[in-house]
């Protein structure tokens, strides 16, 4: 996938026309993903602006007829990684592959047993903000995978291209991420009695 590298080469009017035609209608999607990814409005607007300006600068490199949303999500992901690296203390490295959190055992972990009952109803009781807050507890790459696959409803191949990982990795991250999200939501669910107590 071609990523933007600089200013648009074609006439500015042509770049603006393509931008407004292809990218502008998707700016709410970009802002929504940035909002969930960064967890707050200010960082989300900065990230969405950076993404859309990069898209404008590189609109010449977008091949019309291909998936513009996938192209935007790729730019957004790169912009997010750049921002995380820039914000990290000097001399440290930013690991985006924090997969050391072991997958819960469904037979013993309270967040994975039958405690959820009607899971759809229990999960629907959480506000969007509670789900977004819980997503902040997940490693960056897992959060981004869930955003692409479950929130943006992209297929595993599209997500794999954006994340530059094999399809199998996307599948395992999706499975792992959903379990980690439930584990992050579990204490709130218990506090608000949204689930049954099965373990003392």
């Amino acid at each position, binding site marked *: 996938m071609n990523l933007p590298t600089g200013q648009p080469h074609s006439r*500015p*009017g042509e770049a*603006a*026309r393509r*931008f*407004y035609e292809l990218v502008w*209608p998707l*700016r*709410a999607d970009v*802002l*929504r993903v940035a*909002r*969930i990814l960064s967890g707050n409005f200010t960082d989300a*607007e900065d990230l*969405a*602006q950076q993404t*859309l*300006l990069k898209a*404008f600068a590189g609109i010449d490199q977008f091949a019309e007829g291909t998936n513009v949303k996938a192209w935007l999500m790729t730019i957004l992901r790169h912009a997010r990684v750049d921002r995380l690296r820039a914000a990290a203390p000097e001399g440290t490295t930013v690991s985006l592959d924090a997969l050391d959190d072991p*997958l819960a*055992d*469904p*037979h013993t972990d309270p967040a*994975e*047993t*039958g405690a*959820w*009952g009607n*899971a*759809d109803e229990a*999960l*629907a009781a*959480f*506000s*969007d903000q509670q*789900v*977004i807050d819980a997503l902040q507890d997940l490693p960056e790459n897992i959060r981004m995978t*869930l955003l692409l*696959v*479950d*929130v*943006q*409803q992209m297929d595993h191949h599209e997500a794999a291209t954006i994340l530059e990982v094999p399809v*199998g990795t996307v*599948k*395992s991250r*999706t*499975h792992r991420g*959903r*379990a980690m*999200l*439930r584990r992050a939501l579990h204490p709130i669910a218990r506090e608000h009695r949204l689930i049954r107590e099965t373990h003392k």
Partner: protein
Amino acid sequence: MTSQPHNQTPDDTPPPLDQATARRLARLGTMPVDTRTLDHRLAAVIPPRPRALPAQRTWLRPLRAVAALLLMAGLVGALVYTLSSGPAQASVAVMAQVHEDIVSGKTPVMQVDSIDAANRELSKQWPDSPAVPNVPQQHVMACCMKSVKNKRVACVLLKSRDIPITLTVANASDIKRPTTPGVEHRGVTYQVQTTGNLNMITTRRNDRWICLIAQLPADELMDIAAKLQF
């Protein structure tokens, strides 16, 4: 609920708990966002939307000037007609646009989590706004004021089975009475209209005009309308 085997591979059909989690996450995909600040920031950097016709077609300019004059006269006439014609016609096309603008984030909205909160926010913008009736089982997402043919309406974005629904309320006297025959449902008469994959039902109750529009069957929308608490 049956526990899933721990060693289930990701290639298998996701366990029910995973499917439920995916459905909850999918709801975030239609979460309303306010793009106004972003739009202003982008407008400061990116050139405005170019005009549709290339500038070199100079021979078209006089014709375009005449056309613009005629269009302006038509618009003024239409405006005068609208202002003097009393109740507005809330067509399915207009309401579909209202719905799509809210869902896509094009219309700025206030995020709320209950009808009470929506009524509080709406009354700040429009003190005489008709109260939005309570919807017991629907998830309330956001609200906003809109103008339909110069008449103010209150909109609330709801969700049912993860599908966004726009509930619009106006003073009944502001909206034209339909001329088409209605559909009877649980003792209430509804007008049912369709555009694309959207169904719209409208009715009048307690001096209010009520409209529900969504990608849901009309029967389901009428069931929701029947549960409104005034």
